């Protein structure tokens, strides 16, 4: 589904990604771990199409199509979803209206009619129940005055609404207490299918107890320096990142 070849990216002439290779197949869950500043969030933003990042070498293929030239919204229309590490507050636009617009714009891009209002309402009801979100919350402005946990739950609610092919969860566990973590992980697990894929970017092992990855990759200094199965995550949790740095440095 996703194939990243020798990806180099920089922001303001500062090189951050230095040759990433990654293949994610439908039905898989990949975890990307690594110390601060290793390039994890940059990788997520580059896949989602943030314009500040410039791809200097390599490519990103989604179902065989190079998506580098596509705008963020076009990637979204093709099924890419990024759950933000720091979701943006947008006063004046309610969560419900935001989702209606997002879904209908995506449908428009696919040549479909707007989703009928009753269908939309039904979907909103179902998905908000899945994430244990209070309905009142949906008429509030996007992320405005939300707690850290509410913001993250709102991200996964949006993921549930948009039903992406490829979901990238950027540090979704940060700022979550254990109950919120369970709700979020439960939501992600219910949305998982053989047809979609998830990339979990995280610093810590604890989210991976709930969203169990098929593969774990360690990112360091803009490169994937080690890949393995979920046991690698446990090893990192126990031993930290220093041994990897040493291994790579050696």
């Amino acid at each position: 589904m996703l194939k990243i070849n020798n990806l180099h990216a920089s922001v303001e002439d500062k090189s951050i990604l230095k040759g990433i290779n990654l293949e994610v197949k439908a039905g898989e869950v990949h975890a990307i771990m690594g110390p601060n500043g290793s390039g994890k969030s940059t990788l997520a933003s580059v896949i989602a199409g943030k314009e500040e990042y410039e791809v200097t070498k390599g490519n990103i293929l989604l179902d065989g199509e190079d998506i580098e030239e596509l705008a963020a919204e076009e990637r979204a229309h093709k099924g890419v979803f990024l759950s933000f590490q720091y979701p943006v507050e947008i006063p004046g636009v309610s969560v419900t209206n935001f989702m209606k617009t997002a879904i209908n714009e995506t449908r428009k891009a696919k040549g479909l009619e707007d989703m009928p209002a009753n269908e939309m309402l039904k979907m909103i009801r179902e998905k908000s129940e899945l994430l244990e979100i209070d309905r009142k919350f949906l008429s509030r402005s996007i992320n405005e005055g939300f707690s850290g946990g509410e913001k993250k739950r709102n991200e996964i609610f949006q993921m549930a609404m948009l039903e992406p092919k490829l979901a990238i969860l950027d540090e979704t566990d940060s700022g979550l207490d254990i109950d919120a973590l369970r709700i979020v992980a439960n939501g992600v697990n219910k949305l998982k299918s053989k047809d979609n894929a998830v990339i979990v970017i995280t610093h810590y092992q604890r989210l991976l107890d709930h969203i169990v990855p098929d593969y774990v990759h360690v990112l360091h200094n803009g490169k994937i320096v080690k890949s393995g199965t979920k046991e690698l995550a446990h090893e990192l949790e126990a031993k930290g990142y220093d041994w990897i740095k040493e291994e790579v440095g050696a």
Partner: protein
Amino acid sequence: MDLKEKLVSSFMAFEDTVDVHSPIHDIRTEAIKTFETQGFPTKKQEAWKYTSLNAVLKHDYSVFPKLDNDIEFKDVKKYFIHDIDAYKIIFIDGKYASHLSQTTHDGIDVCLMSSALAKPKYRLIIENYFNKIAPNESLSALNTAFSAEGAYIHIPKNKLVEKPIQIIHFSTGNEAALMLQPRNLVVVDENSHVQIIERHQSLTDNPVLTNSVTEIFANKRAIVDYYKIQNDRQSATLIDNTYVNQKQESLAKVHTFSFGGKLIRNNLNFYQNGERIDSTMKGITIIGDKQHVDHNTLVHHIEPNCESHQDYKGIFGDRATGVFNGKVVVEKEAQKTNAFQANNNILVSDKASINTKPQLEIFADDVKCSHGCTIGQLDESAMFYLRSRGIPEKEARALLMFAFSNNVLDSVKIPEIKNRITKIIANKLGVNIGFEL
């Protein structure tokens, strides 16, 4: 002959067309002298520093339009808020259009300035209110000198006027260039409530210069809700001079929506003559091209325990220019005043500009006054957030602009107006958002 000379020399002829024995004859005569002395304002005056009328005054405007212009309702229907039942006072090239209007004398007076000036039964109101708050200076004086037609609204006490009143001034373009000077008087007595919607609309691209004066009197505990929809063609210039005099415990709100027109100058003035008065003025300005919108506001806090709220949002694209000059005066007696002023702006082009200037003159010591001006760009991280959810750039931009101006729409009490404004904005931004904020 320049416009000033033309106007001054036309005055006698004008007085011949109206009643020289009118009770306001002396007021008009006084006013034309004032205008003759002061002339049109120039950039040398502090209050006009950022707005030049030079280009506007160059046209050879007809001061007395041909009066047989006619338009049919179907041609102008779209300019009405037609999905609500309303009183209508409609003018075509400055002349009353009875076939488009719906006036009343049933318990309230919603009619014409010309008849109010002519008929003895209105004499007392005219004597008590006409030209009592419009200052004797330059543009207002010019309007006073030529005041003959406009809306006359008198709501006696204890009336809740359920239907809003729409005042629309159409110009047909039958003149190569036309100057209009409507004069409106709104008197709302004790405990009464009225809603008014005002609009100026040219039907062709021939230049129109409108110099309008509206005097509003909100007497004890009266509520006045006034909406100005400024979405004219880019050949039109509007100078709107509005004066609101408030008595004890009255509530007056003026919303100004400025989207169209070549040049708009809003002189909006509130005078608080009583305690526990609330004055609110809000505005949304969204312009592009070389449009220019200037909001010049004044709240004069004269007595204690009153409030004023100002909230103006502006979005400027292309080479558009904006001005906000908000003056708040708090007199020494006006203790416990609560005055709030905000002017927030977004520049969406490098060539657009806004000059914003709060001006507070506070002589009382126990007051709460706040003001804030911001000028910024659209938040890029918010743009990426919206786009990453599949919302295209243009729509994302529009959504953020809607969101930016949204709280001004919150206080609009007539849903149909809110709806209309939302549609005008969507149209202006070239998007179909698909929902109402």
